[in-house]
């Protein structure tokens, strides 16, 4: 029994335990189901953070394990958000419209209802017709399928094009960044049919649910925690077996893996598409808690932040990604909300709302230079994980290969 999944991945049990304790603790402190020690908005922040942790796991899988520095995974995240947002917006508007039309002397026809929903939703962009992309919006299940299908298909097509022409390293990063930019520019147009720069709004209201936001926020926290737990186990499973060994081999020395007879492109494409789908699911859970989504969310900079979280947490270890995403996004919320007391230097008072990004940028450079293991490296102090002695050499010749300090013996 030495070789079971759990035995190979002791971190999974620890992680799941911590996640469960966290979820129960937040539930007991929430307004709806507990003492009310945590405000509803903070419960939402925690729920959103869990989703960000999930997308960070996806990023770690594709970058830390497969060596593809994708600068497009936040676009997949936002696509998932758009997919579920379309249903939320449609269903909610449908309820409102049906209610208002119920008082009309003549009962409305189906066409009239759809027209009224259309003019409600697209009034802001000066239109009232449903664009073709909304064809599934009336059905939760079809639209939930789109959460997986939209990012998955985009990743599949893009990945197939990119990997088969052997675009690697920084070129691939720049190409994914370009894809993200193209997508966000496209969505910024009113003609894209997704309300241009207005984006989708009012997503925090679940159609047909009478419960208040305090209860809904806890439900979403549970959902996000469940997704994060499942995502973690899935990612750990993917990277633990033979498949994981091949993927790590691709990261460190792609040419050698290819010469060993593995279809490198196939492996890469699988990991790229799988992580895009995970990112899409994370986004579908995130944006109902945020309440609004617009194309600005998928600006290229957001995807780079994602890489920053993983790097700060420690890439190549799944819990590192979670720690990085949770730590940076929570600290960022703390600093930008103005709760941190300003630092008085005598000649100049540092207001952290203005200086937080400077601090983040600089500390990020420092982490890259001096602590390649990131925050996750601190865990090594209490476990028996030892870095290998490779006399300073990296794991392989590829650009994404692990550095000596990041590895484990």
């Amino acid at each position, binding site marked *: 029994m030495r070789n079971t999944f759990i035995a190979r991945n002791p971190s999974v049990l620890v992680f799941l335990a911590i996640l469960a304790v966290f979820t129960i603790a937040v539930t007991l402190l929430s307004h709806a189901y507990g003492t009310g020690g945590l405000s509803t908005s903070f419960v939402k922040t925690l729920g959103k953070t869990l989703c960000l942790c999930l997308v960070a796991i996806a990023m770690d899988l594709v970058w830390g394990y497969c060596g593809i520095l994708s600068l497009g995974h936040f676009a997949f995240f936002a696509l998932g958000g758009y997919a579920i947002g379309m249903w939320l917006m449609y269903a909610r508007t449908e309820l409102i419209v049906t209610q208002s039309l119920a008082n009309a002397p003549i009962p409305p026809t189906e066409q009239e209802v759809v027209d009224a929903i259309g003019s409600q939703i697209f009034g802001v962009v000066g239109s009232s017709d449903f664009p073709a992309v909304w064809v599934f919006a009336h059905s939760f299940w079809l639209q939930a399928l789109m959460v997986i299908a939209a990012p998955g298909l985009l990743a599949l097509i893009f990945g197939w094009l990119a990997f088969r022409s052997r675009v690697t390293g*920084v070129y691939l990063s720049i190409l994914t960044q370009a894809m993200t930019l193209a997508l966000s520019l496209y969505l910024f147009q009113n003609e894209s049919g997704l309300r241009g720069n207005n984006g989708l709004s009012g997503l925090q209201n679940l159609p047909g649910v009478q419960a208040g936001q305090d209860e809904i926020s806890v439900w979403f926290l549970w959902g996000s925690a469940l997704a994060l737990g499942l995502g973690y186990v899935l990612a750990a499973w993917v990277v633990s077996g033979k498949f994981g060994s091949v993927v790590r081999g691709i990261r460190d020395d792609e040419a050698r893996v290819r010469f060993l007879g593995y279809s490198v492109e196939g492996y890469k494409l699988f990991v790229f598409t799988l992580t895009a789908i995970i990112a899409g699911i994370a986004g579908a859970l995130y944006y109902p808690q945020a309440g609004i989504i617009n194309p600005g969310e998928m600006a290229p900079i957001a995807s780079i932040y994602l890489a920053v979280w993983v790097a700060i947490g420690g890439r190549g270890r799944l819990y590192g990604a979670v720690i990085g995403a949770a730590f940076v996004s929570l600290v960022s919320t703390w600093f930008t909300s103005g709760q941190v007391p300003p630092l008085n230097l005598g000649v100049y008072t540092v207001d952290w709302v203005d200086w937080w990004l400077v601090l983040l940028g600089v500390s990020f450079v420092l982490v890259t230079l001096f602590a390649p293991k990131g925050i996750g490296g601190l865990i090594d102090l209490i476990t028996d994980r030892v870095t290998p002695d490779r006399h300073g050499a990296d794991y392989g010749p590829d650009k994404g290969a692990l550095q000596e300090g990041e590895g484990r013996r």
Partner: protein
Amino acid sequence: MIRPLRAALLLLSLSVSPALAQTGALSPIQALLQEHREAIEKSSRRTIQPAIDAIRDSGLDAAPLVLEQWGARNMWQREDDGLFFYAEEVDRDTLRIFDFATAQSIGEFPDDAFDQLKPNSGIQGLIASALVKFQLNDPDPAKRRDALAALARNGNERHLPILRESIGAEPSAGIRQQKERLERLLTISFGASDAERIEAMDHFRGDLAVDVRAALNPILATTTEVVEGDVPAEGQNIARALRPGSESFPEAAAYDLLVARDMAPARLSPDDQRNALAANIADGRVGGVPVGELSDPAARDRAYAGLVEAGLAPPAATGDEVAAAVEAHSFYERYREASGAVTEAAQEVLRSIEVKLAFNQFLDLTLDALSLASIYFLAAIGLAITFGVMGVINMAHGEFIMMGAYTGYVVQQLIPDYTLSLIVALPCAFAVTFAAGVAMERLVIRWLYARPLETLLATFGISIALQQLAKNIFGTQARPLTSPGWLDGALSFNDVVSISYIRIAIFVLALVFLAFFLFLMKRTRLGLETRAVTQNRNMAASMGINPDRVNMLTFGLGSGIAGIAGVAIGLYAKVTSELGSDYIVQSFMTVVVGGVGNIWGTLLGATMIGFLQKGIEWFNPSNTLAAQTYMIIFIIIFIQFRPRGIIALRGRAAGD
């Protein structure tokens, strides 16, 4: 001899009391006004023309003054003797009255004693066109030009003879030419005979000016007409017959036209149907159909049919009736211009213009694309050094561009003279960004040479820090970087092809940098060492080259050029902290598309991207976002076929 006499007369007129003026002899202009007193008082558009003509043709010096003041509603009539004056209001109840003949004030009076003449806008128009004669013959050339410009905006057929008259006496050759041109333009629109109009048109064959098209296009304006039976063969100037059901003329539009002409009953809109149904609910039923069933369109039709039967609603056209009605009629477009010869000539002249216009628009587009390409090239040339030659991904490159632009702004705050400040700003920007680049290379990048992905992320950290720093220092609003006066304006070849001087300057700057880069890399010691170090660092080191120093200088150089590019870009775009990030993705694309490590590749990449973007914009001019989207998609696909760019390095220099 004459002067004392005139002075005496002036004295006399000043000393004459109003009472005396009444009895004394009237001045010629006042006499003329009194002659047409009735018409002027009546102020009717139909009867006023003789009065205006009489004043215009009187040859009196005061005539233009009368027309001007009258048109401006400044003419007043004294109630007790009916004499006309012009006046300005001193305050609410008091007027300062002026005499037309002398243009002198004759004192201030309460306005009760005077009636203001208020010509309506129609009469004001008549007066204004009468005034044109004086303006066109004014001794001041500037006034004549103003009058011509006003005529070009809103000339009409009344102006035509006046304009023709004034051409002969025109002393200035330039204005004479303008007058002749305007005369032809007016003839096109208002000429008396067809032959005259066609002849005027012929002069404008291939003329690109906007006013020519503005004169010709209304001639070709059409209205859609409908008749029962076939299209009339003659008697009307028909542009083309319309076939209902085609894409440009759907059946619905055809029927709407019939309804608008009262040639067919209106079709029932869903709204009308619903309202009619709602108005006739009785005992929970409408026309025999229970209200609850009316969410079905078919049930609604049945209910409405029931209402029509009961005489409670007007009958509506059914689909078959609509089709039959459309079938029974012919639809065609008719020129508003009656003469077929004129429309034909106009069409021909317009066609000749359009061919030339298309060619010129293509030229203009090419110039636009060239200037956009040079901007991309300028933004990317620093990257071509740091990324292309050294292989360092510098995400903070955009922020170096921004630093250069802000340096230009700061220098401009210190040195108010724009030309001088620009000359100072260029080396300053270079120095600032060179120093920043060297510092960054020493502190961060040199530890990461073998790790390009880590470099990417670390430089991104620097990029967000620098951007926020700029926001903290300069605020979020855009700062202006004003270009010197000699860069204002545009070099225009004709009405279509023009390019602003700033863009020419940027183009020249891009060329200068290209030459500089080539010289540096191919002809200097530093270039040789740079190439050696980037190809094989250890070998270069063993040849006595200090690779640390070379890397530092090369990186500094690339950053410094980014700073200068920042000044150039800041001149035509506003300086904000996001200035750099707007260009960073495009710059990387430029280098990647062109082929890494080759300056000609970067040039080609910038040219391709510039032309591509302008080309896509030409198809859909209103949407530059779409143009960028499609351009990026195109580039992603392009990379599929040439993964190493347009000019790919081969052999050992390629690295792998």
